[in-house]
Protein backbone atom coordinates (compact mmCIF):
# COMPACT_ATOMS: atom_id res chain seq x y z
CA UNK A 1 0.00 0.00 0.00
CA UNK A 2 2.77 2.28 1.09
CA UNK A 3 4.65 1.42 -2.03
CA UNK A 4 1.68 1.89 -4.26
CA UNK A 5 0.82 5.32 -2.95
CA UNK A 6 4.36 6.64 -2.91
CA UNK A 7 4.96 5.04 -6.27
CA UNK A 8 1.91 6.62 -7.84
CA UNK A 9 2.89 10.00 -6.48
CA UNK A 10 6.33 9.63 -7.99
CA UNK A 11 4.68 8.48 -11.18
CA UNK A 12 2.66 11.69 -11.17
CA UNK A 13 5.90 13.63 -11.05
CA UNK A 14 7.23 11.65 -13.96
CA UNK A 15 4.06 12.24 -15.92
CA UNK A 16 4.53 15.97 -15.46
CA UNK A 17 8.02 15.61 -16.84
CA UNK A 18 7.01 13.55 -19.85
CA UNK A 19 3.58 14.60 -21.05
CA UNK A 20 4.81 17.68 -22.86
CA UNK A 21 7.52 15.80 -24.66
CA UNK A 22 5.16 13.14 -25.88
CA UNK A 23 3.23 15.81 -27.75
CA UNK A 24 6.33 17.48 -29.08
CA UNK A 25 7.93 14.30 -30.24
CA UNK A 26 4.84 12.36 -31.17
CA UNK A 27 3.06 15.07 -33.10
CA UNK A 28 5.52 17.74 -34.07
CA UNK A 29 8.24 15.10 -34.54
CA UNK A 30 10.75 17.13 -32.65
CA UNK A 31 12.84 15.13 -30.26
CA UNK A 32 13.22 18.02 -27.90
CA UNK A 33 16.39 17.64 -25.88
CA UNK A 34 15.78 21.02 -24.29
CA UNK A 35 12.70 19.64 -22.61
CA UNK A 36 14.44 19.37 -19.24
CA UNK A 37 15.67 22.96 -19.48
CA UNK A 38 12.15 24.20 -20.08
CA UNK A 39 11.12 22.32 -16.97
CA UNK A 40 13.89 23.93 -14.97
CA UNK A 41 12.91 27.35 -16.28
CA UNK A 42 9.43 26.73 -14.96
CA UNK A 43 10.84 25.72 -11.61
CA UNK A 44 13.22 28.67 -11.46
CA UNK A 45 10.43 31.08 -12.24
CA UNK A 46 8.29 29.62 -9.50
CA UNK A 47 11.17 29.92 -7.06
CA UNK A 48 11.98 33.49 -7.95
CA UNK A 49 8.39 34.66 -7.78
CA UNK A 50 7.83 32.82 -4.57
CA UNK A 51 10.89 34.15 -2.79
CA UNK A 52 10.76 37.70 -4.07
CA UNK A 53 7.03 38.37 -4.39
CA UNK A 54 5.65 35.60 -2.19
CA UNK A 55 3.40 34.42 -4.98
CA UNK A 56 2.13 30.89 -4.56
CA UNK A 57 3.35 28.41 -7.17
CA UNK A 58 -0.26 27.52 -7.79
CA UNK A 59 -0.71 31.01 -9.14
CA UNK A 60 2.57 30.93 -11.01
CA UNK A 61 1.55 27.76 -12.78
CA UNK A 62 -1.40 29.57 -14.30
CA UNK A 63 0.60 32.60 -15.28
CA UNK A 64 3.43 30.66 -16.80
CA UNK A 65 1.18 28.55 -18.98
CA UNK A 66 0.35 31.19 -21.61
CA UNK A 67 3.90 32.52 -21.55
CA UNK A 68 5.44 29.12 -22.14
CA UNK A 69 2.86 28.43 -24.81
CA UNK A 70 3.71 31.60 -26.69
CA UNK A 71 7.45 31.10 -26.35
CA UNK A 72 7.29 27.50 -27.54
CA UNK A 73 5.09 28.52 -30.43
CA UNK A 74 7.64 31.05 -31.53
CA UNK A 75 10.50 28.63 -31.14
CA UNK A 76 8.71 26.17 -33.35
CA UNK A 77 7.73 28.66 -36.01
CA UNK A 78 11.05 30.40 -36.17
CA UNK A 79 13.66 27.81 -35.33
CA UNK A 80 12.23 24.39 -35.93
CA UNK A 81 9.93 24.80 -38.88
CA UNK A 82 12.84 25.42 -41.27
CA UNK A 83 14.28 22.09 -40.17
CA UNK A 84 10.97 20.33 -40.65
CA UNK A 85 10.60 21.80 -44.12
CA UNK A 86 14.11 20.92 -45.06
CA UNK A 87 14.06 17.31 -43.84
CA UNK A 88 13.72 14.75 -46.55
CA UNK A 89 12.68 12.05 -44.14
CA UNK A 90 11.98 11.36 -40.51
CA UNK A 91 15.54 10.23 -39.84
CA UNK A 92 16.97 13.49 -41.11
CA UNK A 93 14.56 15.48 -38.99
CA UNK A 94 15.44 13.41 -35.96
CA UNK A 95 19.12 14.10 -36.36
CA UNK A 96 18.57 17.79 -37.02
CA UNK A 97 16.20 18.24 -34.13
CA UNK A 98 18.54 16.40 -31.77
CA UNK A 99 21.34 18.76 -32.71
CA UNK A 100 19.25 21.91 -32.71
CA UNK A 101 17.46 21.32 -29.45
CA UNK A 102 20.67 20.20 -27.82
CA UNK A 103 22.02 23.60 -28.74
CA UNK A 104 18.92 25.30 -27.40
CA UNK A 105 19.33 23.40 -24.17
CA UNK A 106 22.87 24.72 -23.86
CA UNK A 107 21.64 28.19 -24.55
CA UNK A 108 18.93 27.99 -21.93
CA UNK A 109 21.27 26.61 -19.29
CA UNK A 110 23.70 29.40 -20.01
CA UNK A 111 20.91 31.93 -19.71
CA UNK A 112 19.67 30.57 -16.42
CA UNK A 113 23.16 30.63 -14.96
CA UNK A 114 23.16 34.35 -15.56
CA UNK A 115 19.95 34.72 -13.63
CA UNK A 116 20.56 32.34 -10.77
CA UNK A 117 23.60 30.11 -10.76
CA UNK A 118 22.99 28.38 -7.44
CA UNK A 119 20.72 25.70 -6.10
CA UNK A 120 17.23 26.89 -5.55
CA UNK A 121 14.71 25.53 -3.13
CA UNK A 122 11.80 26.84 -1.17
CA UNK A 123 9.26 25.34 1.10
CA UNK A 124 5.69 25.11 -0.02
CA UNK A 125 3.13 22.83 1.57
CA UNK A 126 5.85 20.64 3.00
CA UNK A 127 3.45 19.17 5.49
CA UNK A 128 2.58 15.55 6.00
CA UNK A 129 -0.79 14.28 4.89
CA UNK A 130 -2.14 10.94 5.87
CA UNK A 131 -3.34 8.97 2.90
CA UNK A 132 -4.72 5.50 3.67
CA UNK A 133 -2.18 5.05 6.42
CA UNK A 134 0.76 6.37 4.45
CA UNK A 135 2.30 9.73 5.17
CA UNK A 136 2.92 11.73 2.06
CA UNK A 137 3.96 15.30 1.50
CA UNK A 138 1.14 17.67 0.64
CA UNK A 139 3.18 19.31 -2.11
CA UNK A 140 3.67 16.00 -3.86
CA UNK A 141 -0.02 15.38 -3.58
CA UNK A 142 -0.73 18.76 -5.11
CA UNK A 143 1.66 18.04 -7.95
CA UNK A 144 0.00 14.71 -8.46
CA UNK A 145 -3.33 16.44 -8.61
CA UNK A 146 -1.86 18.82 -11.15
CA UNK A 147 -0.63 15.93 -13.22
CA UNK A 148 -4.03 14.30 -13.14
CA UNK A 149 -5.75 17.52 -14.14
CA UNK A 150 -3.34 18.28 -16.95
CA UNK A 151 -3.42 14.69 -18.16
CA UNK A 152 -7.18 14.59 -18.11
CA UNK A 153 -7.57 17.91 -19.85
CA UNK A 154 -5.10 16.85 -22.48
CA UNK A 155 -6.79 13.54 -22.99
CA UNK A 156 -10.19 15.12 -23.37
CA UNK A 157 -8.83 17.75 -25.68
CA UNK A 158 -7.17 15.16 -27.89
CA UNK A 159 -10.15 12.88 -28.02
CA UNK A 160 -13.13 15.15 -27.86
CA UNK A 161 -12.22 18.19 -29.90
CA UNK A 162 -11.64 18.85 -33.51
CA UNK A 163 -8.22 20.35 -32.89
CA UNK A 164 -7.33 17.29 -30.85
CA UNK A 165 -8.38 15.05 -33.69
CA UNK A 166 -6.17 17.00 -36.03
CA UNK A 167 -3.28 16.61 -33.62
CA UNK A 168 -3.73 12.88 -33.47
CA UNK A 169 -3.98 12.66 -37.24
CA UNK A 170 -0.75 14.57 -37.73
CA UNK A 171 0.91 12.28 -35.23
CA UNK A 172 0.08 9.31 -37.43
CA UNK A 173 0.78 10.72 -40.87
CA UNK A 174 1.49 14.33 -41.72
CA UNK A 175 1.04 13.64 -45.41
CA UNK A 176 -2.38 12.08 -45.05
CA UNK A 177 -3.36 14.78 -42.58
CA UNK A 178 -2.71 17.43 -45.18
CA UNK A 179 -4.88 15.55 -47.65
CA UNK A 180 -7.86 15.55 -45.31
CA UNK A 181 -7.70 19.27 -44.87
CA UNK A 182 -5.58 19.61 -41.77
CA UNK A 183 -3.04 22.41 -41.65
CA UNK A 184 -0.06 20.33 -40.65
CA UNK A 185 2.34 23.13 -39.82
CA UNK A 186 -0.13 24.93 -37.64
CA UNK A 187 -1.15 21.76 -35.90
CA UNK A 188 2.46 20.81 -35.27
CA UNK A 189 3.19 24.24 -33.88
CA UNK A 190 0.16 23.95 -31.66
CA UNK A 191 1.25 20.56 -30.36
CA UNK A 192 4.76 21.79 -29.77
CA UNK A 193 3.53 24.86 -27.96
CA UNK A 194 1.16 22.91 -25.75
CA UNK A 195 3.96 20.48 -25.03
CA UNK A 196 6.22 23.32 -23.93
CA UNK A 197 3.43 24.75 -21.84
CA UNK A 198 2.82 21.48 -20.02
CA UNK A 199 6.50 20.99 -19.38
CA UNK A 200 6.89 24.45 -17.91
CA UNK A 201 3.82 23.92 -15.75
CA UNK A 202 5.28 20.63 -14.61
CA UNK A 203 8.45 22.49 -13.66
CA UNK A 204 6.50 24.86 -11.46
CA UNK A 205 4.73 22.05 -9.67
CA UNK A 206 7.89 20.03 -9.22
CA UNK A 207 9.79 22.97 -7.80
CA UNK A 208 7.69 22.72 -4.65
CA UNK A 209 9.54 19.60 -3.60
CA UNK A 210 12.64 19.10 -5.72
CA UNK A 211 15.82 21.12 -5.30
CA UNK A 212 17.38 22.15 -8.58
CA UNK A 213 20.07 24.19 -10.17
CA UNK A 214 20.22 25.43 -13.76
CA UNK A 215 22.19 22.42 -14.96
CA UNK A 216 19.67 19.81 -13.88
CA UNK A 217 17.66 19.74 -17.07
CA UNK A 218 19.44 16.85 -18.73
CA UNK A 219 18.37 14.45 -16.01
CA UNK A 220 14.74 15.27 -16.65
CA UNK A 221 15.16 15.10 -20.37
CA UNK A 222 16.44 11.58 -20.11
CA UNK A 223 13.67 10.49 -17.80
CA UNK A 224 11.11 12.07 -20.08
CA UNK A 225 12.50 10.41 -23.18
CA UNK A 226 12.43 7.05 -21.53
CA UNK A 227 8.85 7.48 -20.42
CA UNK A 228 7.72 8.73 -23.80
CA UNK A 229 9.31 5.87 -25.65
CA UNK A 230 8.13 3.33 -23.15
CA UNK A 231 4.58 4.58 -23.41
CA UNK A 232 4.59 4.62 -27.18
CA UNK A 233 5.43 7.71 -29.13
CA UNK A 234 2.59 10.17 -29.48
CA UNK A 235 0.17 8.49 -27.15
CA UNK A 236 -0.68 10.49 -24.10
CA UNK A 237 -2.19 7.54 -22.26
CA UNK A 238 1.00 5.65 -22.87
CA UNK A 239 3.13 8.36 -21.36
CA UNK A 240 0.96 8.51 -18.27
CA UNK A 241 0.81 4.77 -17.77
CA UNK A 242 4.54 4.44 -18.34
CA UNK A 243 5.20 7.21 -15.83
CA UNK A 244 3.07 5.51 -13.22
CA UNK A 245 4.63 2.12 -13.84
CA UNK A 246 8.07 3.61 -13.55
CA UNK A 247 7.11 5.38 -10.33
CA UNK A 248 5.73 2.27 -8.74
CA UNK A 249 8.58 0.06 -9.85
CA UNK A 250 11.20 2.50 -8.61
CA UNK A 251 9.50 2.85 -5.28
CA UNK A 252 9.04 -0.89 -4.95
CA UNK A 253 12.67 -1.56 -5.71
CA UNK A 254 13.81 1.20 -3.37
CA UNK A 255 11.67 -0.11 -0.55
CA UNK A 256 11.96 -3.83 -0.98
CA UNK A 257 15.40 -4.30 -2.48
CA UNK A 258 17.73 -1.35 -2.39
CA UNK A 259 17.38 2.32 -3.25
CA UNK A 260 20.71 2.03 -5.03
CA UNK A 261 19.09 -0.05 -7.72
CA UNK A 262 16.17 2.17 -8.65
CA UNK A 263 17.67 3.52 -11.83
CA UNK A 264 18.89 0.13 -12.92
CA UNK A 265 15.39 -1.17 -12.32
CA UNK A 266 13.89 1.64 -14.33
CA UNK A 267 16.08 0.83 -17.30
CA UNK A 268 15.41 -2.87 -16.98
CA UNK A 269 11.70 -2.19 -17.14
CA UNK A 270 12.26 0.06 -20.10
CA UNK A 271 14.15 -2.64 -21.91
CA UNK A 272 11.68 -5.36 -21.05
CA UNK A 273 8.78 -3.30 -22.28
CA UNK A 274 10.51 -2.64 -25.54
CA UNK A 275 11.59 -6.21 -26.06
CA UNK A 276 8.10 -7.50 -25.65
CA UNK A 277 6.31 -4.54 -27.15
CA UNK A 278 8.84 -2.80 -29.37
CA UNK A 279 6.31 -0.13 -30.22
CA UNK A 280 5.86 0.87 -26.58
CA UNK A 281 2.92 0.20 -24.30
CA UNK A 282 0.32 2.04 -26.32
CA UNK A 283 2.32 2.72 -29.40
CA UNK A 284 1.70 1.63 -32.92
CA UNK A 285 4.37 -0.18 -34.77
CA UNK A 286 6.59 2.14 -36.76
CA UNK A 287 5.66 1.73 -40.39
Amino acid at each position, binding site marked *: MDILISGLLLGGTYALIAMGLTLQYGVARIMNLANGEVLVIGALTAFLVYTSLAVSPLVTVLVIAPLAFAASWLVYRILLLPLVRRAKNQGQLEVDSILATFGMGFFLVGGMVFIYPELFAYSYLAVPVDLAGTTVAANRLVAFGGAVLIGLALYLWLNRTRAGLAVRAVA*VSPLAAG*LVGINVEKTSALAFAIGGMITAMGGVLISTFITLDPSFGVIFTMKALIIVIMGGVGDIRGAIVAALILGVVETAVATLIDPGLTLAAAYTIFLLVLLFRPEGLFGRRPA
Partner: protein
Amino acid sequence: MLEIRNLTVTYGLHKALQGVSLTAEKGEVVVILGANGAGKSSLLRAIAGISEGDVAGDVTLAGASLRSLGADRIVEQGIAFVPEGRGIFGDLSVWENLMLGAYPERARARRKQNLERVVSLFPKLAQRRGQTVRTMSGGEQQMVAIGRAIMSNPDILMLDEPSLGLSPLLCRDLFENLSKIRETGIGVLLVEQNAKQSLAMADRGYLIENGRITGEGQADALLSDPAVQKAYLGGV
Protein backbone atom coordinates in the same frame (compact mmCIF):
# COMPACT_ATOMS: atom_id res chain seq x y z
CA MET B 1 -14.86 23.69 -62.82
CA LEU B 2 -11.20 22.79 -62.36
CA GLU B 3 -9.03 24.65 -64.77
CA ILE B 4 -5.29 24.40 -65.14
CA ARG B 5 -3.44 26.83 -67.29
CA ASN B 6 0.18 26.77 -68.25
CA LEU B 7 1.33 24.71 -65.30
CA THR B 8 5.06 24.12 -64.95
CA VAL B 9 6.74 22.04 -62.28
CA THR B 10 10.48 21.98 -61.80
CA TYR B 11 12.56 19.85 -59.47
CA GLY B 12 15.84 21.66 -59.17
CA LEU B 13 16.99 21.88 -62.76
CA HIS B 14 14.67 19.18 -64.02
CA LYS B 15 11.41 20.33 -65.62
CA ALA B 16 8.87 17.61 -64.90
CA LEU B 17 5.93 19.52 -66.39
CA GLN B 18 5.94 22.30 -68.96
CA GLY B 19 3.02 24.53 -69.83
CA VAL B 20 0.31 22.02 -69.14
CA SER B 21 -3.30 23.18 -69.52
CA LEU B 22 -6.36 21.10 -68.91
CA THR B 23 -9.85 21.21 -67.48
CA ALA B 24 -12.17 18.90 -65.64
CA GLU B 25 -15.87 19.47 -65.03
CA LYS B 26 -18.23 18.25 -62.39
CA GLY B 27 -19.80 14.98 -63.30
CA GLU B 28 -17.21 13.90 -65.80
CA VAL B 29 -14.32 11.47 -65.69
CA VAL B 30 -11.12 12.72 -67.20
CA VAL B 31 -8.25 10.32 -67.58
CA ILE B 32 -4.60 11.23 -68.01
CA LEU B 33 -2.38 8.74 -69.78
CA GLY B 34 1.35 8.75 -70.08
CA ALA B 35 4.45 6.62 -69.73
CA ASN B 36 6.21 6.20 -66.44
CA GLY B 37 7.94 9.40 -65.53
CA ALA B 38 5.92 11.49 -67.96
CA GLY B 39 4.86 13.82 -65.16
CA LYS B 40 1.37 12.61 -64.33
CA SER B 41 1.89 12.38 -60.61
CA SER B 42 3.71 15.69 -60.62
CA LEU B 43 0.62 17.24 -62.13
CA LEU B 44 -1.80 15.90 -59.57
CA ARG B 45 0.50 16.69 -56.67
CA ALA B 46 0.86 20.26 -57.87
CA ILE B 47 -2.90 20.66 -58.03
CA ALA B 48 -3.31 19.17 -54.57
CA GLY B 49 -0.72 21.52 -53.12
CA ILE B 50 1.81 18.90 -52.04
CA SER B 51 4.35 19.26 -54.81
CA GLU B 52 7.98 19.01 -53.77
CA GLY B 53 9.05 21.03 -56.77
CA ASP B 54 8.58 24.63 -57.82
CA VAL B 55 5.17 25.22 -59.32
CA ALA B 56 4.27 27.98 -61.77
CA GLY B 57 1.04 28.61 -63.65
CA ASP B 58 -2.63 28.85 -62.75
CA VAL B 59 -4.92 26.42 -61.02
CA THR B 60 -8.48 27.58 -60.49
CA LEU B 61 -11.54 25.85 -59.16
CA ALA B 62 -14.83 27.43 -60.14
CA GLY B 63 -12.90 30.56 -60.94
CA ALA B 64 -11.09 30.81 -57.60
CA SER B 65 -7.34 30.44 -57.69
CA LEU B 66 -5.83 27.57 -55.70
CA ARG B 67 -2.24 28.32 -56.48
CA SER B 68 -1.13 29.91 -53.25
CA LEU B 69 -3.17 27.69 -50.96
CA GLY B 70 -1.86 24.93 -48.73
CA ALA B 71 -3.00 21.35 -49.13
CA ASP B 72 -5.52 21.75 -46.33
CA ARG B 73 -7.21 24.77 -47.92
CA ILE B 74 -7.36 23.07 -51.29
CA VAL B 75 -9.27 20.20 -49.73
CA GLU B 76 -11.70 22.71 -48.29
CA GLN B 77 -12.16 24.19 -51.73
CA GLY B 78 -13.34 20.82 -52.95
CA ILE B 79 -10.48 18.80 -54.33
CA ALA B 80 -9.76 15.44 -52.76
CA PHE B 81 -6.66 13.55 -53.73
CA VAL B 82 -5.62 9.93 -53.45
CA PRO B 83 -1.91 9.93 -54.15
CA GLU B 84 0.25 7.08 -55.30
CA GLY B 85 1.07 5.19 -52.16
CA ARG B 86 -2.43 6.09 -51.05
CA GLY B 87 -1.91 8.72 -48.35
CA ILE B 88 -3.81 6.97 -45.64
CA PHE B 89 -3.32 6.82 -41.90
CA GLY B 90 -1.63 3.44 -41.76
CA ASP B 91 -1.65 3.24 -38.00
CA LEU B 92 -5.30 4.07 -37.58
CA SER B 93 -8.29 1.84 -38.10
CA VAL B 94 -10.40 1.80 -41.23
CA TRP B 95 -13.13 3.68 -39.47
CA GLU B 96 -10.85 6.34 -38.09
CA ASN B 97 -9.51 6.89 -41.57
CA LEU B 98 -12.98 7.43 -42.93
CA MET B 99 -13.88 9.77 -40.10
CA LEU B 100 -10.76 11.79 -40.67
CA GLY B 101 -11.73 12.00 -44.31
CA ALA B 102 -14.68 14.04 -43.16
CA TYR B 103 -12.45 16.48 -41.29
CA PRO B 104 -12.85 19.41 -43.71
CA GLU B 105 -15.56 21.90 -42.83
CA ARG B 106 -17.26 21.29 -46.13
CA ALA B 107 -17.61 17.58 -45.46
CA ARG B 108 -19.04 17.56 -42.00
CA ALA B 109 -22.65 18.14 -42.81
CA ARG B 110 -22.75 15.35 -45.33
CA ARG B 111 -20.76 12.88 -43.34
CA LYS B 112 -23.56 10.38 -43.04
CA GLN B 113 -24.52 10.37 -46.68
CA ASN B 114 -20.93 10.08 -47.76
CA LEU B 115 -20.33 7.25 -45.35
CA GLU B 116 -23.27 5.37 -46.80
CA ARG B 117 -21.92 5.95 -50.24
CA VAL B 118 -18.51 4.60 -49.28
CA VAL B 119 -19.93 1.54 -47.58
CA SER B 120 -22.09 0.70 -50.52
CA LEU B 121 -19.08 1.05 -52.81
CA PHE B 122 -16.82 -1.01 -50.56
CA PRO B 123 -18.85 -3.22 -48.23
CA LYS B 124 -15.62 -4.84 -47.02
CA LEU B 125 -14.67 -1.62 -45.27
CA ALA B 126 -17.67 -1.95 -43.02
CA GLN B 127 -16.74 -5.51 -42.15
CA ARG B 128 -13.14 -4.52 -41.41
CA ARG B 129 -13.93 -1.25 -39.72
CA GLY B 130 -11.66 -1.93 -36.75
CA GLN B 131 -8.63 -3.24 -38.63
CA THR B 132 -5.45 -1.23 -38.59
CA VAL B 133 -5.05 -0.13 -42.16
CA ARG B 134 -1.36 -0.89 -42.34
CA THR B 135 -2.07 -4.59 -41.87
CA MET B 136 -4.49 -4.76 -44.78
CA SER B 137 -3.64 -6.12 -48.18
CA GLY B 138 -2.72 -3.78 -50.98
CA GLY B 139 -6.12 -3.78 -52.56
CA GLU B 140 -7.93 -3.28 -49.30
CA GLN B 141 -5.80 -0.26 -48.55
CA GLN B 142 -6.72 1.20 -51.91
CA MET B 143 -10.36 0.99 -50.95
CA VAL B 144 -9.69 2.82 -47.72
CA ALA B 145 -7.88 5.53 -49.61
CA ILE B 146 -10.69 6.12 -52.06
CA GLY B 147 -13.26 5.92 -49.31
CA ARG B 148 -11.37 8.49 -47.31
CA ALA B 149 -11.29 10.85 -50.27
CA ILE B 150 -15.01 10.52 -50.92
CA MET B 151 -15.64 11.33 -47.28
CA SER B 152 -14.14 14.78 -47.91
CA ASN B 153 -17.20 15.54 -50.04
CA PRO B 154 -15.20 16.76 -52.99
CA ASP B 155 -16.29 18.44 -56.19
CA ILE B 156 -13.30 16.97 -57.93
CA LEU B 157 -11.75 13.67 -56.94
CA MET B 158 -8.19 13.09 -58.11
CA LEU B 159 -6.80 9.59 -58.15
CA ASP B 160 -3.25 8.57 -58.96
CA GLU B 161 -3.18 5.04 -60.37
CA PRO B 162 -5.95 3.68 -58.21
CA SER B 163 -6.08 0.30 -59.93
CA LEU B 164 -2.50 -0.48 -59.03
CA GLY B 165 -2.42 -3.89 -57.46
CA LEU B 166 -6.13 -4.54 -57.60
CA SER B 167 -7.48 -7.88 -58.71
CA PRO B 168 -9.32 -7.97 -62.05
CA LEU B 169 -12.61 -8.17 -60.27
CA LEU B 170 -11.92 -5.22 -58.05
CA CYS B 171 -10.47 -3.31 -60.92
CA ARG B 172 -13.68 -3.64 -62.80
CA ASP B 173 -15.59 -2.72 -59.65
CA LEU B 174 -13.42 0.31 -59.20
CA PHE B 175 -14.14 1.64 -62.65
CA GLU B 176 -17.80 0.95 -62.24
CA ASN B 177 -17.67 2.79 -58.96
CA LEU B 178 -15.98 5.73 -60.52
CA SER B 179 -18.82 5.89 -62.98
CA LYS B 180 -21.24 5.88 -60.11
CA ILE B 181 -19.30 8.61 -58.39
CA ARG B 182 -19.53 10.64 -61.54
CA GLU B 183 -23.26 10.18 -61.45
CA THR B 184 -23.40 11.79 -58.02
CA GLY B 185 -22.02 14.91 -59.67
CA ILE B 186 -18.40 14.63 -58.65
CA GLY B 187 -15.78 15.23 -61.27
CA VAL B 188 -13.03 12.62 -61.44
CA LEU B 189 -9.51 13.33 -62.59
CA LEU B 190 -7.72 10.07 -62.99
CA VAL B 191 -4.19 9.01 -63.77
CA GLU B 192 -4.10 5.46 -65.03
CA GLN B 193 -1.84 2.87 -66.59
CA ASN B 194 -4.77 0.69 -67.34
CA ALA B 195 -5.63 2.67 -70.46
CA LYS B 196 -8.10 0.27 -71.95
CA GLN B 197 -10.41 0.03 -69.00
CA SER B 198 -10.10 3.61 -67.95
CA LEU B 199 -10.75 5.04 -71.39
CA ALA B 200 -13.71 2.72 -71.68
CA MET B 201 -15.47 4.50 -68.85
CA ALA B 202 -13.96 7.98 -69.11
CA ASP B 203 -15.52 10.98 -70.85
CA ARG B 204 -12.34 12.64 -71.97
CA GLY B 205 -8.64 11.97 -71.90
CA TYR B 206 -5.28 13.71 -72.09
CA LEU B 207 -1.96 12.27 -73.17
CA ILE B 208 1.23 13.44 -71.49
CA GLU B 209 4.72 12.85 -72.79
CA ASN B 210 7.87 14.27 -71.27
CA GLY B 211 5.98 16.81 -69.28
CA ARG B 212 3.85 18.16 -72.10
CA ILE B 213 0.33 17.49 -73.22
CA THR B 214 0.63 15.78 -76.58
CA GLY B 215 -2.95 14.94 -77.21
CA GLU B 216 -6.45 15.22 -75.89
CA GLY B 217 -9.95 14.27 -76.90
CA GLN B 218 -13.10 12.38 -76.20
CA ALA B 219 -12.43 9.02 -74.67
CA ASP B 220 -13.91 6.95 -77.46
CA ALA B 221 -11.94 8.90 -80.03
CA LEU B 222 -8.74 8.26 -78.16
CA LEU B 223 -9.62 4.63 -77.76
CA SER B 224 -9.79 4.20 -81.49
CA ASP B 225 -6.82 6.40 -82.35
CA PRO B 226 -4.10 4.12 -83.77
CA ALA B 227 -1.28 6.16 -82.26
CA VAL B 228 -2.86 5.90 -78.84
CA GLN B 229 -3.43 2.22 -79.35
CA LYS B 230 0.18 1.70 -80.16
CA ALA B 231 1.54 3.65 -77.23
CA TYR B 232 -0.94 2.91 -74.47
CA LEU B 233 -3.02 -0.05 -75.37
CA GLY B 234 -0.28 -2.53 -76.00
CA GLY B 235 -0.33 -2.02 -79.76
CA VAL B 236 -3.31 -4.18 -80.51
